[in-house]
């Protein structure tokens, strides 16, 4: 196990290196002069040239990359071209909104997805099952921007029960924060809930078909006990795996959702950074997100390997 763990962690290093190179090169391919967003559209050519030199943009590309990656290795993500703030500080500022969004979405997934999945499995092929699986497919098939637009239209503009946007840090005003996070979290959570629902139903049905369950039934253990104690416990392994693998997709969802609800999270940080050509911010933020996703995948794999005796290291 230790050897396997070390091998998996060691594999992360080349992946992260490849990601850094890809990210850096891809961002340098973006057209448009980044100094335009800093100096405004009426700046003179001389001013823009001076600023480019200041930002180190006239150095050769490999040199810029080495400088950046050297900084990253020593814990310095550089400074925003636009505002001059240190990138690490900006990211720390933006993390809470995204983390909260992700956590509420996962919470919804557990609180709604699992019970609904169990219900659909035990009521297999009934109207309840069809309705629940139908809702699941619907949720999976609704683009986040569409769901967000519908939710804003109904709850914020028509019924006016929640504010359409804005963000208050949880630490400053917990109630105000939660009220504003409801719609974005439902938007992001819709997919995760559906995925968990489908997976719970599927693996529970599979588990209920296993030999040991039949044995348990033969011994006269109650159905409820069989489902909750024996089958569900075994069915949970793939559910946990699939949920964890949704973390990456969750990050994609927050990009669109944060943009629509104007939440100051990592998604809006990255998108606005791309649009305003604030490359150090985009590089830092994407690197943090990618590293996080890779770590979650790694931990998931390890847990899976640890739980499933059939996997050999």
């Amino acid at each position, binding site marked *: 196990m230790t050897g396997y763990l070390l091998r998996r962690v060691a594999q992360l290093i080349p992946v992260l290196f490849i990601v850094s190179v890809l990210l850096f090169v891809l961002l340098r391919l973006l057209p448009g002069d980044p100094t*335009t967003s800093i100096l405004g559209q009426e700046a003179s050519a001389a001013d823009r040239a001076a600023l480019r030199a200041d930002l180190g943009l006239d150095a050769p590309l490999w040199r810029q990359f080495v400088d950046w990656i050297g900084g990253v290795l020593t814990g310095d993500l550089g400074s925003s071209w636009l505002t001059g703030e240190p990138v690490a500080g900006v990211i720390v500022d933006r993390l809470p909104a995204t983390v909260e969004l992700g956590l509420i979405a996962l919470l919804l997934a557990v609180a709604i997805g699992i019970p609904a999945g169990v219900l659909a499995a035990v009521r297999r092929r009934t109207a309840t099952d069809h309705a629940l699986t139908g809702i699941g497919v619907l949720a999976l098939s609704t683009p986040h921007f569409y769901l967000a637009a519908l939710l804003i239209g109904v709850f914020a503009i028509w019924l006016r029960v929640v504010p359409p946007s804005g963000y208050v840090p949880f630490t400053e005003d917990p109630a105000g924060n939660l009220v504003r996070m409801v719609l974005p979290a439902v938007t992001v959570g819709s997919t995760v809930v559906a995925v968990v629902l489908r997976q719970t139903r599927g693996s529970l049905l599979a588990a209920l078909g296993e030999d040991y369950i039949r044995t348990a039934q033969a011994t006269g253990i109650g159905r409820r006990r069989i489902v909750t104690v024996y089958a569900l416990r075994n069915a949970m392994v793939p559910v946990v795996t699939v949920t964890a693998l949704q973390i990456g997709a969750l990050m994609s969802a927050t990009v669109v959702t944060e943009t629509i609800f*104007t939440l100051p999270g990592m998604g809006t940080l990255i998108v606005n950074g791309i*649009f305003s050509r604030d490359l150090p911010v985009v590089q830092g933020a994407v690197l943090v997100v990618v590293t996080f996703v890779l770590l979650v995948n790694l931990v998931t794999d390890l847990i899976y390997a640890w739980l499933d005796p059939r996997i050999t290291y």
Partner: protein
Amino acid sequence: MAAPSFPHPSHRPALTRRALLGGGVALIAAGALAGCGSGDSAGAKGRGGTLTVGFDNEPTTLDPALSSAISSDRSVLNLFYDTLLRQQRDGSFVPALAEKWTVEGTTVTFTLRAGVTFHDGTPFDAEAAAFNLRRVIDPATKSTKAGALKKLAAVDVVDPRTLRLTLKATDPLLLVQLAHEPGMMASPTAVKAGEYGRKPVGTGPFVFDAWRSKVQLTGKRNPKYWRKAADGTALPRLDQVVYRFVTDTKVLRAEISTGGVQLVRVLPPEEFGQLKSDRQVVLEDIGVRRSYYVALNTTRAPFNDPKLREAFAMAVDRAGVGKAAAAGEFDLAPSFATRNDWFFDGSITPPPLNPAKAKAALGGRPVPITVVARRRAPDPTIAELLQSQLTAAGFDPKVEVLEAQTQLDRMRKQDFDAALLVIDIPRLDPSLSFDPYFASKGSNNWSGLADAELDGLLEKAVGTEDRAVRKQAYVDVQRRIVGQNYWVFLHQPRSPLIHSAKLTGIVLNVDGQWRLDEAELAS
């Protein structure tokens, strides 16, 4: 030179009294003073309170010398900074940090107000003022405002209360510039401490409190503010101002109608309809317009040919564009002049809409053109409509919707045929609207103009302070631009001031940016 709304030095006993009291006591004293001083004149209106502003265009820096937005940053900077003199809405100047000034040829002498301190306690004196102006013109600062003070040759401190500026040549715009960003006074102590752009320290009505990027910016009442209201009461009246940075116009609309914010910088016209029926919200037309235009690239075919430029102008249904993109809330005007501007002349008109004639001028073959537009509502919509109108008139238009930097890059390289853009008007002076775009050496001469007649007119207009001569020159400038169809000016959507009915006392700059030192909220 003294203006009625500004206190004479003799009006300052309160300040002296407060200066004798210290710290926290001063705050209470100021509150009490304001309370009894207001008396009947304030009536039912409340003092204090927090004003929340919905603002779509977050500044990238609060250092006025480095601010890059053409004007919108000023609505934020005015919270924290004062200038030597103020320009009022009608264009006239009144004293601010300078009590008086004299202009003799190329020398301008300011007598500074005594007893003013920056928020960090640094005294405001001639040294501090000179520090700020020298900083702007110092090439090492790389100030975005250096060009505005380019005629400034020397800044001399005569004595602590006297500042003398020496110019290379007379400059009719010098006082205008000094009354806005280039002349804003920042604390030298704070500037020298570094990382200044995110923690501004001025002498203004509000003290910087906090700034969370993309979220909000907070300013707290400056209890030691030097300025008094016309009735002698203390300013500012609000306890706190919060700018919430919200870019989504739907959200801004919803926030102003639910009272989440009490003042909004700008909203697109399609949002007006609902607000007009809302009695809690005031839409006040302050003459500010957004001027949409199409710049034609005259350096290459097809638009190096005046005939084809005219065909373009005849193909565009400007009223139709206004209807679709500004919900009917627009004016049609010949150029960057609004109907209220002193250089407006309604007799200048572009060629009338005539797609058939345009088609004939093209010679029967579709003329391929590339239109570059910005990826920001409603520009893509306008571009789509233009595409449809141009196709009907025999062009073969390809629309590219780009991000700001990419679009400007293309325009600077003159790699486009037609470019759709917008500016906010009026600007502080017409030269600031026309010179960058139409002078052959202008920074934004995207059309690639080299028109000696136009250059001569533009120079004539800034060479004098005689309003009549300037007006004639600018009318001729506009006649030339429109006559040659260098640009095709589209519609001018209205951009009213939108605020809660409870909010009063907003003071506006010439170009519609606001000051909030006299603002108050009814409880």
